[in-house]
């Protein structure tokens, strides 16, 4: 195509990776919740939105952005803990649809509460001073903040991997995902493990929301459309697979960025077209177990 230099394509590739990083964080949380608790969290978009708004709140009381990165997931994760403990826990064993429906109702409540506190119009979220501007990445200048988003995501990925693979707690979580009954027999309180996992999953969603806020602002509805996109990522990657969530998240981000370069009006549709293709060729997703889907 004319006027389409290689540099431009590579730059757009990085834009896609930054967008993909947000998807990765969302889909990771979603996959964790599904893989361990078999809960499909329809409130995931609402937790994402809550992340951005708690960030605004904390900045308002004098926190800086770096502290927010730490405290926002903690605060929203605690909200997630409460939801699991008092609402979702009652529904385990009552069929897979009920937690889904409950979290859907929960998302209504959360969005409306944010509207009451912060108003219905969207708010701007300033990029932290240290990350304003662009950095030379060899082939051209790229917004520093987007590089930062990619970096944070990879750090979080590394930490999560260390936690799950290299600590005794991670061992328990992995065992709980494989066979909760045996874990219970071994004398471990599985309910507590699930509680923690729910906190981690919602915390990751909140982090994604906080990171996305400087790119697109914060509005009570920001979680709505991204929920469907996060579903696409989890379906493409394979439900419950963390590796799948990472690869599919980045892939979806890059696909969106590339379509916006070539045919901007098709960018949103391309996500779903990608999912349709994957479903036709490999219904269980990239890393999903065969037979799980059909």
């Amino acid at each position, binding site marked *: 195509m004319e006027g389409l230099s290689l540099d431009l394509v590579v730059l757009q590739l990085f834009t896609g990776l930054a967008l993909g990083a947000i998807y990765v964080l969302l889909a990771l949380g979603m996959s964790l919740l599904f893989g361990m608790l078999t809960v*499909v969290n329809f409130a995931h978009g609402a937790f994402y939105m809550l992340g951005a708004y708690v960030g605004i709140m904390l900045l308002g009381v004098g926190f800086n952005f770096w502290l927010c990165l730490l405290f926002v997931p903690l605060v929203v994760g605690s909200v997630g803990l409460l939801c699991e403990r008092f609402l979702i826990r009652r529904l385990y064993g009552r069929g897979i649809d009920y937690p*889904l429906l409950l979290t*859907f109702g929960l998302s209504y*409540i959360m969005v409306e509460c944010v509207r009451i506190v912060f108003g219905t119009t969207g708010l701007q979220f300033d990029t932290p001073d240290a990350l304003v501007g662009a950095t030379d990445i060899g082939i051209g200048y790229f917004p520093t903040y987007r590089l930062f988003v990619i970096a944070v995501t990879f750090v979080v990925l590394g930490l999560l991997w260390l936690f799950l693979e290299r600590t005794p707690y991670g061992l328990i979580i992995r065992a709980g995902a494989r066979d909760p009954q045996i874990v219970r027999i071994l004398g471990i309180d599985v309910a507590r493990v699930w509680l923690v996992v729910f906190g981690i999953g919602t915390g990751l969603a909140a982090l994604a929301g906080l990171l996305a806020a400087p790119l697109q602002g914060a509005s009570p509805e920001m979680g709505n459309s991204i929920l*469907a996109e996060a*579903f696409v990522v989890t379906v493409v990657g394979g439900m419950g697979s963390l590796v799948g969530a990472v690869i599919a998240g980045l892939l979806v981000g890059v696909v969106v960025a590339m379509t916006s370069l070539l045919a901007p009006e098709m960018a949103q549709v391309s996500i779903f077209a990608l*999912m*349709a293709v994957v479903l036709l060729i490999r219904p269980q997703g990239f890393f999903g177990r065969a037979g799980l889907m059909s």
Partner: protein
Amino acid sequence: MLPPNFVATCKRHRVVLSIAFLIVFPLLMPFKAIAVNILIYGLFALGFNLMFGTLGLLSFGHAALFGAGAYACGIAIVHFGAPWWAGILGGTLGGMAIAALIGALAIRTRGIYFAMVTLALSQCVYFLAYQATAWTGGENGLRGVELSRIAAFGHSINFVDPLTRYYVVAFFVALALFILSRILASPFGAVLEAVRENEARARACGYDVRATRFMAFVISGGFCGLAGALQALHLSIVPIETLYYQTSGLVVMMALLGGMGTFFGPFVGAGVFLLLENLVSLWTVHWQLFVGAAFVACVLFFPRGIWGTLLMGRAK
């Protein structure tokens, strides 16, 4: 308590009772428009419930079927100058066509994935409609689905009068209810329940589970498309939000609120939901908070829904 033979009598004459109820209903409502809304959303919820209640597949993409019906009807009338009945027919077929497209992909998945995949595909439809401004009006919605008079069998009826409008809509809803109850009572209806209860066994009995699901999804699309077409005629505009996933969520809420395991449950749910929305929004703009809380409470404490719980209480 009611005498037991009263219940039996009601059951025997349920068709007559339903028709009588449809005739009296608008007179009981605070205003006629809400009665029309309840009928339309009730039909939509009924179509949705064919998938969830009867077949056991939770779809989060029914907005696409409803919206396709509304847009097909609107486009037929606005762009092609079609008569009203062609609009309604077009809406029904439009719902079925989109259902066939989405269904062909979505029935490859099962259970929880079905919910996610239908949601994602319906969002795809939403964005496509959003871009196709020439046909759909894009963000502004499709305007000008005006219908002031309806001509049928040599008579001309004033469609602007609220009560007349109600009875026209009620006629189509009653027709759909009748067809649906026949479908559910047919051998095909029994297969649907068999697939829900024990998929492996249904397959072992020689039923093509995938084809059954596909058929059910298309039929569900027909009912939802009809509801959408009636909605387009009722509002004289098709807002783009008709296709948005909130609409899918709305119908899930209505069906669950009313009771998805029952025939009339979704209808009751739609009625309660819309009345609740109207009442609460009289004194606060944050009605979604209450609706959400009511829904959460319903999931936690009344999984059978209002109608289902009532029926249960009677059965004891």
